[in-house]
């Protein structure tokens, strides 16, 4: 069963949606409380986030650092533009792979949906090329992570 959708829209957007059983308040906290973020925003098995700094207020900054425990790692930094508990977060972020990628503008909304919530993420990249490159470099990471997982299985 797949509750998540991922699609590209127009020339510069990437849209992700996902339903959750929990209410928007909990979802919002899980996106802004460092202790909670470190429990889930990890990507593939085997990766951890040893550094999670998050100051969720307008103008506040965040920094997430990931490692696979075997020498590979990367980090993201970002700034909050708008923060409306418990419904909407707007921020910009960029990855360091280690080279800095162009800024990704991200709007995240949490809407009540029956007993649970519907989360929508709308990413806006500066231009088509950057979106293309983001999707393409993400591949290398996805692949790397898959290899790491594979290592664990064999």
């Amino acid at each position: 069963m797949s509750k998540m959708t991922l699609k590209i829209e127009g020339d510069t957007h990437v849209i992700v949606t996902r339903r959750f059983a929990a209410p928007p308040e909990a979802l919002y906290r899980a996106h802004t409380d460092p202790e909670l973020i470190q429990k889930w925003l990890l990507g593939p098995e085997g990766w951890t986030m040893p550094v999670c700094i998050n100051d969720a207020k307008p103008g506040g900054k965040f920094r997430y650092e990931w490692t696979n425990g075997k020498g590979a790692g990367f980090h993201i930094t970002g700034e909050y533009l708008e923060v409306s508990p418990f419904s909407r977060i707007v921020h910009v972020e960029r990855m360091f792979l280690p080279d800095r990628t162009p800024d990704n503008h991200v709007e995240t909304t949490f809407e009540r949906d029956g007993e649970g919530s519907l989360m929508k993420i709308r990413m806006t990249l500066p231009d088509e090329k950057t979106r293309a490159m983001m999707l393409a470099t993400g591949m290398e990471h996805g692949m790397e992570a898959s290899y790491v997982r594979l290592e664990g299985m064999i």
Partner: protein
Amino acid sequence: MDGLDTKFSALADPTRRAILARLSLGEATVNELARPFEMSQPAISQHLKVLEDAGLILRRVEGTKRPRRLAKEGIEAMDQWLGMLRTALEKNYDRLDGVLANIDTQKKGEMR
């Protein structure tokens, strides 16, 4: 690796995406592909070259014509990548389901 960079870059152009959309309906010649666009045939040929170099379309020789069609393998490679991204994100959100379940039980009184 057979350039995903090249593939995604090739897609980063509205004319080339329109060409791919047209080819998803079936094979077409350069003339047929050029018709809906206000573009010279050389300009369209240039776009076709980018798509071909990226492994997204194939060409066939039929007399003097060179009809193009979608390259299944090239398209599937991109689709596979999107699938992998989806899987990584889904893993995050599956874990988040667990985290949220704990918040719900532990912090119910505190929430409001």
